[in-house]
């Protein structure tokens, strides 16, 4: 335990030095094996920082949205939009901007990485916590009010515990998604340089650049090791621990377990930390945030309630006005910038958008084509599912962006190489969402339905048409929605790459955006980013939202 603490302290000091380090022009990473733990540590630290920010943000955001119906009315749609825009399309802009803010230092690039990961992690956390908050059984909330728990105690004794399970489940998803963006931002090179921030992502990119297969394999292995380690040492114990927050009528027999949690719970040091540090801390926070009431409080809440209501209304109005002003200012600025684009430039944008749309569609179709049969097979064969599932999970945990350098190494020399590599990357990044959902859907088909199908001899294609496809449809749609977002994100990093010091591009919206960054063409960057967001959001509204509604109303098995 002490070693862990010491190592942690060293790591943080080391990272702090790295952050403030001056940008080294033209340098590439040291690819020796002994540097790998350092890179892994730096990458993990970025993830952890971004995750902490995401968690704090989403809990606050969800709490505000749940507390006020007025706020909820615009906060939720905003979250929905933020969730569906392809974040990576903003990466080039964000990186350039932040790099300019801290000239000559790594700080800007590091901040950009953290911000990108944050934007990939925060939204689903906020959604899940908000969902938890509004589904707290009414009588529990009333009990909290009747027994006057106050804001802080209600938050810590009721709301956080109630949301804990889904918050942790979504944290695991967020964390997995975060690796994708971390790799992308670590591989990103500033225009006209080949500078990258040190980390596993840049290690892989440099290794591929130099054609160093040995280093490439080692880097990937390290990445997988880090991901598996975190899963076992952090997430599994958390999941097992959070089982106590389950709302259930009777004691469950198959609660999740974790060997790490059992070790921790048996450890004397952990026990000591709990008794000496954690419990006093909780007590201190209780006292600070909700002071013990005096007898006069019995009469006062009435006045307090009216006063705080008036104050919060005033605050809401001011906040709303400020937000409105900011939005208006933004819209005017953007319109002003785009207005100058010529017709031919719009033509290029439309052509690029069409090309990328085609690529994402192909990637999604391919993903569905292989995952549906395989997923149904795994899901309906429980014995195989047990054996295959862990393998699939480990494979899926490798972020597609980490594999991209490998893909480039292999595919770039083929004719139409980057086209191929782009579709492959999209496929790699998205197929797992679809596969996992299909497996879950197939496993959820009630056995009496399957038996009824067998007895009435619904077999072959008819079995697929009347039983399997309708039953997995809601799950398939859910998986495809997530996959679409992933595919568009992938287009940014896959259509325009710097490989071994050379630029390779193809026609596409991603290439257009990345190219605009290189040329410093702000208007094109803005128009491309807007175009991509518009396409994704429109697609969501017109296609996926409707399919989802259909799935919910007609094909949901209850």
């Amino acid at each position, binding site marked *: 335990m002490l070693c862990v603490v010491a190592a942690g302290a060293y790591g943080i000091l080391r990272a702090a030095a790295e952050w403030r380090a001056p940008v080294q022009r033209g340098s590439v990473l040291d690819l020796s094996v002994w540097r790998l733990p350092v890179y892994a540590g730096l990458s993990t630290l970025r993830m952890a920082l971004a995750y902490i920010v995401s968690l704090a943000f989403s809990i606050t955001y969800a709490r505000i949205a749940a507390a006020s119906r007025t706020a909820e009315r615009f906060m939720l749609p905003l979250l929905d939009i933020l969730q569906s825009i392809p974040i990576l399309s903003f990466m080039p802009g964000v990186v350039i901007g932040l790099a300019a803010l801290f000239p000559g230092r790594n700080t800007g690039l590091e901040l950009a990485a953290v911000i990108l990961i944050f934007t990939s992690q925060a939204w689903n956390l906020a959604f899940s916590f908000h969902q938890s908050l509004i589904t707290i*059984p009414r*009588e*529990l909330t*009333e*009990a909290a*009010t*009747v*027994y*006057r*728990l*106050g804001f802080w*105690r209600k938050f810590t*004794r*009721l709301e956080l*515990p109630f949301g804990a399970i889904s918050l942790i489940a979504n944290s695991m998803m967020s964390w997995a998604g975060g690796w994708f963006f971390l790799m992308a931002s670590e591989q990103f090179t500033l225009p006209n340089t080949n500078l990258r921030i040190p980390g596993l992502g840049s290690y892989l990119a440099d290794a591929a650049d130099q054609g160093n297969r040995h280093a490439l394999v080692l880097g990937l292995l390290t990445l997988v090791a880090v991901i598996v380690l975190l899963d076992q040492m952090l997430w599994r114990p958390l999941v097992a621990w959070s089982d*106590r*927050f*389950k*709302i*259930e*009528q*009777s*004691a469950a027999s198959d609660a999740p377990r974790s060997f790490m949690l059992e070790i921790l719970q048996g450890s004397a040091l952990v026990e000591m930390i709990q008794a000496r540090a954690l419990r006093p801390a909780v007590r201190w926070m209780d006292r600070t945030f*909700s002071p*013990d*009431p*005096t*007898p006069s*409080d*019995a*009469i006062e*809440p*009435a*006045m*307090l*309630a*009216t006063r705080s209501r008036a104050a919060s209304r005033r605050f809401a109005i001011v906040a709303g006005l400020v937000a409105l002003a900011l939005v208006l200012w933004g819209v005017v600025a953007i319109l002003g910038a785009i207005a100058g684009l010529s017709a031919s430039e719009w033509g290029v944008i439309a052509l690029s958008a069409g090309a990328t749309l085609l690529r994402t569609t192909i990637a999604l179709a391919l993903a569905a084509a292989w995952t549906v049969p395989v997923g149904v097979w795994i899901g309906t064969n429980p014995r195989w599912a047990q054996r295959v599932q862990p393998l699939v999970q480990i494979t899926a945990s490798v972020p597609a962006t980490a594999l991209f350098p490998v893909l480039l190494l292999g595919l770039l020399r083929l004719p139409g190489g980057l086209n191929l590599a782009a579709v492959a990357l999209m496929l790699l990044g998205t197929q797992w969402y679809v596969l996992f959902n299909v497996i879950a859907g197939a496993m959820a088909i009630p056995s009496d339905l399957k038996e009824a199908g067998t007895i009435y001899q619904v077999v072959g294609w008819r079995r697929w048409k009347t039983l399997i496809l309708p039953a997995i449809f809601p799950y398939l749609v859910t998986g495809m929605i997530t996959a679409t977002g992933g595919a568009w994100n992938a287009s940014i990093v896959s259509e325009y790459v710097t490989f071994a010091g050379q630029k390779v591009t193809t026609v596409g919206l991603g290439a257009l955006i990345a190219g605009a960054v290189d040329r410093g063409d702000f208007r094109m960057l803005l128009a491309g980013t807007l175009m991509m967001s518009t396409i994704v959001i429109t697609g969501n509204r017109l296609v996926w939202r409707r399919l989802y509604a259909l799935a919910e*109303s*007609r094909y949901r098995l209850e």
Partner: protein
Amino acid sequence: MTAATTPSAAAPGAILLGADGVCKYYGDDRAPVLERVSIELRDGEFIALLGPSGSGKSTLLRILAGLMPPSEGTVLVHGEALHGPNARVAIVFQSFALFPWLTVLQNVELGLLSVALTAVERTKRALKAIDMIGLGGFEEAFPKELSGGMRQRVGFARALVVQPEVLFMDEPFSALDVLTGENLRNELHDLWTDRAVPTKAILMVTHNIDEAVSLADRILVFGANPGHIRIELKGLPAAERRNKSPARAQLVDMIYQIMTNPNEDAGALVEQHAAKAQVVGRRVSRGERPRRYQTLPDVSIDDLTGFVQYVSGIGGKASLHDLTRDLQLRTDDLLAIIEATDLLGLADMQQRQVILTPLGQRFAEVDLDEEKSIFRSTVIEHIALVRHILRELEDNPAHAIDADSIIDDLEHSFSGEEARRQFETVVDWGRYAELFTYDDSAGELRLDEEHWAGHAPEPK
């Protein structure tokens, strides 16, 4: 137990809590859930609020607890208007409302967290309450390890440990099985009559007539749509409450009479009744609003036909007492079914007896086609809303109308949630009668042409 030890002694104490002309509207609803309700709770009293579901009794309890503000009217605590949560009240909830991640002890301590006590003192008081309520030995257990009865004991301990001036109970025994509920009820009764707790008054919401009669000093019978107090009855003297005295049987009978006739004047029913129970002080009447449609009880076709066939099978009549015992239904569910058969002219209520009409007898005996045909004509004859929908469908050239227009119309007479329930019931009945079809995804009602011919509701 003698009358002298009972808190419901002759002279009522000071008014602890009162509601004056309380109304409650939800959102933009045009019809209220609760209409002009006044009530007062005095020192030493045990009051039961009795009524069918949708009569707003739980809403009134929450308004009195300060969990929601009234839309109109005021709540008075010791004569002063209440704003925000009522600090003198503790609640025992129907679903127990225990925090699953806290132990029994922690759950009980929860009520004391906001009281200025040292941690040691807090635990001491909680342990005392746990012992008093018969939970000793379960202090470290989590709620999910306990049976329903034990969980509700935790609910009671948590409420009593704060020594509330007034104890509220929202259907505290209805989630428990009969024996457990009975047992817990008796224990509560003893705690209350022995004055083992400093609580000065109890207000209980229930749908169970027996429960109300065996516990309460005063019984307020609620009516639905909108929720209002139909009548206020004096409870039995303590000695006659719990044994099988004739007075008790008569009071139970009379309340049944009142509750199975929701559309009649409760005062007149009391006068007709042999029991001649005391109507307390004022008789609460409401300003009758003209109503376009009857209130359809929330009853499914299966329950309705099953009930008629059951009664037919045991000779065409059955006493309420037997039905409650044999069918194992909640009182308000049973009352709803009886009301539906009454509305449709399939059965009558006389002297605590359900008696099938000749039409009801026939309905029970014929085959499915004939049964449907009887149902079709009786539903057209008796249900104004069905006639209204059929007229609208006829008037429309496509013989189809938007469901929203009907719901919108219903919202003039019912609160939003209730309007939707009314609509669902009428769709269920209309579909079964094959008078119209309903496409839920399109939200469209359509005339069922095949069975419609020759069923014109009334000449226009």
